């Protein structure tokens, strides 16, 4: 892209976690099993946008989120923030990066230190990063609580005194305390009740407008991701299958997996009852990835090439990329009976 630098860019990132190493394998001197959490992931996050990352469990979306904030280091490839390779940052530069890229966690119970009051949590963040001189800290805490719509008397209370939704607000306030530019939200609302989810999503949308935040929204709920994101990346077994503008993805998915995922998500319209199963089969073990396309084993359109050659992301429609050998899949005008079917 001509000269402009995306705020976050992920380039060819691999991440493996070592799996079990059985005695039998040692004796046979076979290599240790490894979980391939991320395989050749490449994507950009533009300033001010919301990028949704969606996928089922084990697809690597949380690992990717953690690589973005450097909770994990990539095994191969680079993650750049503002053009700078984040794995090279140390000392002050690393602290500055941490301040500018914040994360909000899934678990409203585990993400707050149970022995610290809300004001202790917030004032720690404010004072470590020297966001405000000491006398101004209480005032800033009040502002932050107001920003996330928590009552002012919340400051003196402990996490266990709050409901799940309120705790997520505290987590958001903690992240906002250091005035970040990017927020990575990992399953922010998936532990919450539906009505409370909506409150937190609304809050996030409002804060993004007000503070000009860039948001990476990681979730398994397609409806939610579509609602909140400008662009969406669909992941499967550690790889990006498709990355498209939100409406384009949902109206004309260009990857068979995206399509299946959309069809499997129950529609909120009882008139749309459909008795066909969207996608058969189960996720293969991430310990032992097939050489070709990771989706080959479940794909209704699979053909020989898919089993031997791994497809890479290539451009489709405007702003749309998909990793599928069927470059015409889902394209307007292309009829589905041209596609190979059957196994």
């Amino acid at each position, binding site marked *: 892209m001509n000269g402009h630098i995306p705020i976050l860019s992920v380039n060819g990132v691999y991440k493996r976690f070592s799996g079990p190493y059985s005695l039998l394998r040692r004796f046979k001197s076979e290599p240790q099993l490894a979980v391939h959490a991320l395989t050749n992931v490449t994507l950009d996050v533009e300033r001010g946008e*919301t990028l949704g990352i969606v996928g*089922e*469990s084990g697809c690597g979306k949380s690992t990717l989120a953690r690589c973005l904030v450097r909770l994990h280091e990539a095994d191969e490839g680079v993650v750049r923030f503002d053009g700078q390779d984040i794995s090279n940052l140390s000392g002050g530069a690393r602290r500055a990066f941490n301040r500018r890229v914040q994360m909000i966690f899934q678990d409203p119970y585990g993400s707050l230190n149970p022995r610290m009051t809300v004001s202790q949590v917030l004032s720690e963040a404010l004072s470590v990063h020297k966001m405000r001189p000491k006398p101004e800290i209480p005032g800033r805490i009040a502002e932050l609580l107001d920003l996330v719509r928590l009552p002012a008397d919340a400051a003196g209370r402990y996490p266990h005194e709050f*409901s799940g*939704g*309120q705790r997520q607000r505290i987590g958001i306030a903690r992240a906002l305390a250091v005035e970040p530019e990017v927020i990575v939200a990992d399953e922010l609302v998936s532990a919450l*009740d*539906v*009505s*409370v*989810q*909506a*409150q937190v*999503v*609304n809050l996030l*949308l*409002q804060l993004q407008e007000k503070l000009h935040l860039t948001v990476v929204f990681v979730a*398994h709920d*397609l*409806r*939610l991701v*579509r*609602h*909140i*994101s*400008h662009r969406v990346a669909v992941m499967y077994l550690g790889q990006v299958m498709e990355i498209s503008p*939100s*409406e384009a993805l*949902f109206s004309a998915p260009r990857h068979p997996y995206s399509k*299946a*995922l959309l*069809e*499997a*998500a*129950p*529609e*909120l*319209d*009882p*008139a*749309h*009852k*459909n*008795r*066909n*199963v*969207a*996608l*058969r089969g*189960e*996720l293969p073990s991430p310990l032992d990835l097939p050489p070709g396309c990771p989706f080959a084993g479940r794909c209704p359109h699979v053909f020989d090439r898919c089993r031997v050659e791994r497809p890479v992301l290539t451009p489709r429609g405007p702003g749309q990329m998909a990793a599928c050998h069927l470059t015409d899949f889902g394209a307007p005008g292309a009829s589905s009976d041209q596609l190979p079917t059957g196994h």
Partner: protein
Amino acid sequence: MTASTVPTSLPQTAPGLLVRGLTTTFDTSRGVAIAAADVDFDVAPGEVVGLVGESGSGKSVTLRSIMRLIREPGKVTGRVEWGGRDLVAMPAEELRRVRGGEIAMIFQEPMTALNPVLPIGAQIEENLVAHTDLNRRQRRERALELMNIVGIPAPERRLDEYPHQFSGGMRQRAMIAIALACSPKLLLADEPTTALDVTIQDQILKLLLDLRDRMAMSVVLVTHDLGVVAATCDRMAVMYAGRIVETGTVADVFACPNHPYTRGLLGSVPRSGQSRTMLQSIDGTPPNLTDLPDGCAFHPRCSFATEICLKQRPPLDLVGTDGRRAACHHHERVAAAEPIL
């Protein structure tokens, strides 16, 4: 009580489930928690009924109360009629024959609901031992047949495997196989797909619908996901703070909610064509069950609330045909409000 407003005229011989005035309370250190209050609903043969609500709404407690799975200090009162008999008053011996036989149950977390040290096959056969007089060979055959019915590949081999060797979706299938062992007439499903991925959830829900058709059984499906209700249920009951606040056919309730809570729930779910707009959230949080507000339990979070809602609890009254009921003083205003869909 609501007895006067609920038709009790169903013939005594009507097969199916009749729940009347089911109330479950727990004595806690902070007072009596009313987890389910005065719950009335019917399940006709072959029907899938969804019980929807958020955590603490009483949907799971209701399901467990039907099966008398409430432990001390919980107390269950009311009537649960099944084939003319009352499950709440039934002696334990008789109840054991009904459980796992005519009525089966599946749970949210199959890993904890299955016995980790017994092979799946043995767990299916265990149910057959309890409820049939099949011999060993017949039991094995039936187990194989069940594994095929629920779509577990390579059933011969998998019968001898343990739960930890199954994936989440396969475990849920195995649990369904156990539940189906004695061809139950009613299946109680407590959030059976909540722990599963969306493509697996889709498979399991469609499996349940197929089984319903094949085995002519009724299903009560407890879920928090309105999408699941829309995709699978014929009728639904929305619960809030232990009570049913609205019930009717799924099509009617989705098309025109008569209770502000149902309306709020539907508005909370993002839908297509409205990207990045504010969702219609419900303010506040569900009430504490030991300290419910006076009048309508929903009034502190309700935008339709008036004086009367603070003082008088609305009964679950008929508001239309097809057993359409809502417990709201202002159901007409709610129904007439601008559509959220």
